[in-house]
């Protein structure tokens, strides 16, 4: 299984990422998820902080776990950090497989665990106010669906 994990400030190119995943021609199915900064109220900036090295290691563990659960040919995870604006893309998880159900399942599994395991933190700026986004219990529940 081809694995690509990148933490970066820059945006990503979906066409390029999906093309890289399918370049070997093995996969007929790619399930991709992109997370976006919503435009809401006076939200002006979303700043993402992370724990370098642990982030990559944690995501690598999650991807390896997905690879044991489903027959995958490749996984790409790109997570942005730094200062983002409403409308910007935050994260890409793209999973390639010969089977579309496996691709969908693994992609959702990775997003659910990324939300609960990967050491990222979001701070919102609304007008003069800055505050850290609270972890959502519904994300823990989503991850628990997959068993341990």
């Amino acid at each position: 299984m081809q694995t690509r994990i990148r933490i970066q400030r820059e945006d990503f190119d979906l066409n390029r990422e999906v093309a890289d995943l399918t370049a070997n021609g093995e996969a007929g199915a790619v399930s991709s998820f992109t997370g976006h900064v919503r435009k809401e109220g006076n939200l002006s900036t979303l700043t993402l902080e992370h724990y370098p090295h642990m982030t990559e290691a944690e995501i690598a563990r999650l991807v390896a776990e997905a690879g044991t659960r489903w027959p995958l040919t490749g996984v790409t995870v790109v997570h942005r950090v730094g200062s983002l604006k409403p409308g910007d893309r935050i994260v890409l998880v793209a999973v390639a497989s010969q089977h579309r159900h496996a691709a969908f399942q693994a992609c959702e599994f990775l997003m659910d665990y990324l939300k609960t395991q990967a050491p990222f933190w979001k701070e919102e700026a609304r007008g003069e106010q800055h505050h850290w986004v609270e972890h959502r219990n519904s994300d823990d529940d989503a991850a628990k669906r997959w068993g341990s």
Partner: protein
Amino acid sequence: MNLLYFAWVRQKIGKSEEQLTPPVEDVASLIAHLKNLGPNYADAFADLSRIRVAVNQRHAGLDVKLGPQDEVAFFPPVTGG
């Protein structure tokens, strides 16, 4: 011991990283030690239900044993994705 702080834990303590060699044997006793270092630490660790820990870059519980070479990170529950 290399200590790292992230997000509001970092902001409350006022630094992102420090080297300490405290006489502690596990995560719980390290936190007890840190809370006595000043009001900023006491504030950061006031509610442990809001604190998560990683030892050597893996999620860890309060009972994990610590040695002088360990990297210990404190942070809020994660909010990526």
